[in-house]
């Protein structure tokens, strides 16, 4: 299984590794959400704009999460995150996810290790590669010249 992402230009002029995923709000409509591939994140966290666009009822109360900037408030939601495989079939990740309540906490949703631990994660800026590799796909490290840009 291979789920491909790409390096996307962000507001500060920085390219970041992103995978686009499809989200389904309660009204049955669809929208796309960019997820930052963050190997340091323990949990997947939806950004506040995605939470509001999902329009789902949080489970329980406020749940604090911690990062370099200190603590921030989040809520827990049940939802599905759908990504596309190399053969165009969809991979659905259903479960309980954290979601930021303040838009200044995260400007982009973060893909955390409860999902990335299911894969080998490649975040390769010189090679212009962002992907998650699962069963049926693997990678190999070889000695040689750097990839041509």
């Amino acid at each position: 299984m291979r789920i491909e992402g790409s390096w996307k230009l962000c507001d500060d002029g920085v390219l970041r590794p992103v995978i686009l995923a499809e989200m389904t709000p309660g009204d049955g409509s669809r929208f796309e959400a960019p997820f930052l591939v963050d190997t340091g994140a323990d949990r997947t966290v939806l950004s506040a704009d995605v939470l509001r666009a999902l329009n789902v009822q949080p489970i329980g109360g406020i749940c604090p999460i911690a990062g370099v900037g200190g603590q921030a408030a989040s809520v827990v939601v049940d939802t599905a995150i759908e990504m596309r495989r190399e053969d165009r079939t969809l991979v659905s990740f259903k479960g309980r996810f954290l979601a930021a309540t303040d838009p200044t906490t995260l400007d982009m949703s973060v893909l955390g290790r409860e999902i990335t631990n299911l894969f080998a994660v490649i975040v390769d800026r010189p090679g212009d590669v962002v992907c998650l590799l699962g069963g049926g796909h693997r990678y190999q490290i070889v000695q040689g010249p750097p990839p041509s840009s």
Partner: protein
Amino acid sequence: MTDDWPPVVMGIVTDPVEIARSAAALAQCERNWDWLEAHASDVYSHRGKYICIAGQQLFVGDVLEDVLARAKAAHPDDRGLFTRYIPKERMPRIYANRGIVEAM
């Protein structure tokens, strides 16, 4: 970090209709993102605002629901629309969250 978090359930969707619909949505989204990157200086100038890109058009506002409603009304067939919040300030970002602190 708590260890009792329920695991994510991964499933494969093989319905050809759903796959075709999703592929079309992704293609629309990529077109919208390409448009964003081509107009990045304008789009990202709206600091502290919500944006939505739909139909390769920018929608901006202070209230996400309003921005989304205008985008969907203007481009009802665009399933590849996406929203962002543009941070007020440019600064290096360290996203990595270190898990849940505790329940409140």
